[in-house]
């Protein structure tokens, strides 16, 4: 059994240490907000935080997160009140919604490290997350709005 801390809750799982965190989180722990899109770190739908750093969970072996704090979309705020979540709702960003967990998790790191991101900063931080519905223009606006609303707190 391996101990993991996800969203400040402790879990014990019996997956192999090399199992990608994505499947540990989805299948063993049961948090399905983190999505599978490509399995090869190309699309970013699976983005989570490990000790405050963005990680593509589909290529991150579980062993890399042992003893560290894992945060998924479900843990980014207790009640959907993260500035990004509020901005996402205000701008009606999602369409199908499948990639949005990855988008928000990526944007959260951006805002944590850059309180007033420029368009170029947003491009640099967000171009790893594919949205097939094309919500990019709204993601850009929502990030800027969240920054104004103190999202990088």
């Amino acid at each position: 059994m391996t101990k993991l801390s996800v969203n400040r809750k402790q879990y014990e799982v019996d997956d192999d240490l090399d199992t990608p965190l994505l499947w540990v989180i989805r299948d063993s722990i049961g948090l399905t907000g983190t999505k599978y899109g490509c399995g090869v770190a190309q699309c970013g739908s699976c983005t989570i935080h490990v000790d405050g750093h963005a990680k593509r969970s589909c290529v991150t072996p579980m062993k890399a997160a042992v003893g560290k704090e894992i945060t998924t979309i479900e843990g980014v705020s207790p009640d959907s009140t993260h500035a990004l979540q509020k901005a996402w709702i205000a701008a009606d960003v999602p369409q199908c919604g499948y990639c949005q967990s990855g988008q928000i998790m990526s944007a959260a790191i951006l805002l944590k490290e850059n309180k007033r991101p420029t368009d170029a900063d947003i491009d640099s931080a967000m171009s790893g997350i594919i949205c097939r519905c094309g919500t990019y223009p709204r993601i850009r606006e929502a990030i800027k709005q969240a920054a104004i609303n103190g999202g990088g707190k």
Partner: protein
Amino acid sequence: MTPKTELDRRSFLKATLLTGGALLIGTNLPFTSRAEERFGIEAEPAAEFHPNAFIKIAPDGKVTVVVGQAEMGQGVLTSLPMIVADELEVDWKDVTFEHGPPGAAFINPALGGQITGGSASIRGLFDPLRKAAAATREMLVTAAAQQWSVPVEQLRVRNGEVFHPTSRRTAKYGTLLAAASKVTPPTAPKLKDAKDFKFIGKNVKRLDTPEKVNGSGIFGMDIKVPGMLTATIMRSPVIGGKVKTFDDSAAKAVKGVRHVVQLESGIAIVADNYWSAKKGRDALNVVWDEGKMASVSSDKLYQADVAAAATAKGIEAKKIGDIAAGKAKAAKTIESVYWAPFLAHATMEPMNATADVKADRCEVWSGIQAQMVVQQMVAKELSMPPEKVTVNNTLLGGGFGRRLGEYVIDAVKLSKSVGKPVKVVWTREDDMHGDFYRPSAYNKMSAGIDAAGKPVFWQHRIVSPSIMATLGPGLFGFAPPPDRLDDTSTEGASNLPYDMQNLYVDWVRTDPGVPVGFWRSVGSSHTAFSTECFLDELAFEAKKDPLAFRLSLLEKHPRHAGVLKLAAEKAGWYKPAPKGIFRGIAVHESFASYVAQVAEVSVDKKTGKVKVHRIVCAIDCGQVVNPDTVAAQMESCIIFGLTAAFYGEITVKNGRIEQRNFYDYKMLRMNETPKIETYIVPSTEKHGGVGEPGTPPTAPAVVNAIFAATGKRVRSLPIKPADLREVA
């Protein structure tokens, strides 16, 4: 939607899922609505007023709109409830939604099936939903009139209550449910005057956004059923190949692998979870009987298209006047070949489905665009009556025409085989290889202008495989005979809006053996490219401004002209573009909507790399329900169109689809996304679609702008920078 309602809905959904479709709703005030019997909906012991398939009202006044269409990003979970809320006169905060089951009541009259596609949800359901909501409102009013013994005419409704101005009595809808349920539903309820619309035509926030920003939204991939196993299937690398022999000893040794099952489609590894199933599959050894496609490659298919275009007999799609007579008048004739490749849908959520087959019934969970078809397919597979098959539709992680539902069958077969619920998950590579691709289209075009630059003939031959031949039998129960037109191949070309006195459009059907299907905007996804670029060529030959040339040929098509003018005005078409930036324009009608786009691009002379700076889009989609959704769909359509224009290409080598994942089937990303502006033509015309019509004009607008920038005409997609380098 308040968090509380959201919670209620979720727990309701959960209850539904966990109890095999039995609705567990508070039963403190059971009754059966006559309307339920009338609409053939199974009576449920519920406190709710369920006057028809679409609407449920709870004692607390909450209104649930049952949406039988699939939500794949286009916003039906909001736009359809808006229509109901407006006619029902309820507060938006009291409105929520529920995914509807398969059912005759949910057949979209615009399509003749319970299918989400063809940009038809509003087009087909606006009237039925209004009528259903108006009838419900009249039943509530009648109930109040009976309780108060006043004439119906004296009563008014507002914000979820009936009131009697004279006596100042009010009754919330929630208090009238039992009485209303005894009222015979009116057959011709009075509809609101459009000027009184409260929601229709206004920007309303989507009801499904909250669950899509906190991870709680449930997609097919997220379904969990007690006792469920997860499967991955190893399918033939060659299209149509079959298993010859296989060795599963190593696969069975993988921890968590429970069963190895041979299916028609391949070898399934059924395991405790996805990763075990995937590892088990990686350990499989299969020898394939590759079949006849093993000798097929893209270059050969292209050569076959060239030959077919030159020699085959075409099927007529449209004829006006006489081409020979037109050619005789031509002062100048041009000929071009346009090519559009096969394309994958590449929805962000790979295909998946969960099934639980019991002896006498079956339940499936998946994101599906054609629930009734799936219900029938599953029933046939299990030799059960369709009513024994429960289909739970989830959120769709993208549809674009891909999610018709055939992938459910493997889950059904596996669940039946292993006696447990089974979720089948496709890998991204499975998804890329197992698609129904947008057909390739080889276009042989010729046209002439007279001395004054006026077109005198237009001839267009399209060589492409037939979507209906692939999907017709499963979806609609028939395939078009080989000598009949499949107009999904020629739509957008056969109805060319430009004034052409002599026009001939025909189609040569090919059968490359590559499965083809509906891909966002279907035929228009390639006919807009060929027609709008070739028309641009004609304008150039006529030495006319591309916009003026178009407008001169659209006198009989004011809505085309209207969007062109609007897009051109907003883009500043007649003002000089910023230095180094060049503009192109295109217009196209599809799904009863008219869309024009102006693209602003620059081209790096050294690398040939194209940067799209801005796209200005104008749409006339008739009466609008939610303008912000229209704008969102245009943004979506344009980015989808740009992805296809710059990256989209599926190729075949020795019968194998060559592309595997996003590294070789690329998607537009944030750093490549231009500024997009959408303008909506105010209109009271009948509704047009919005989910697809924004895609067709994008590639031609960009390609026409590239011509303006470089003098080079891109006639083959995707756009290749190497072709645009300025030769030193």
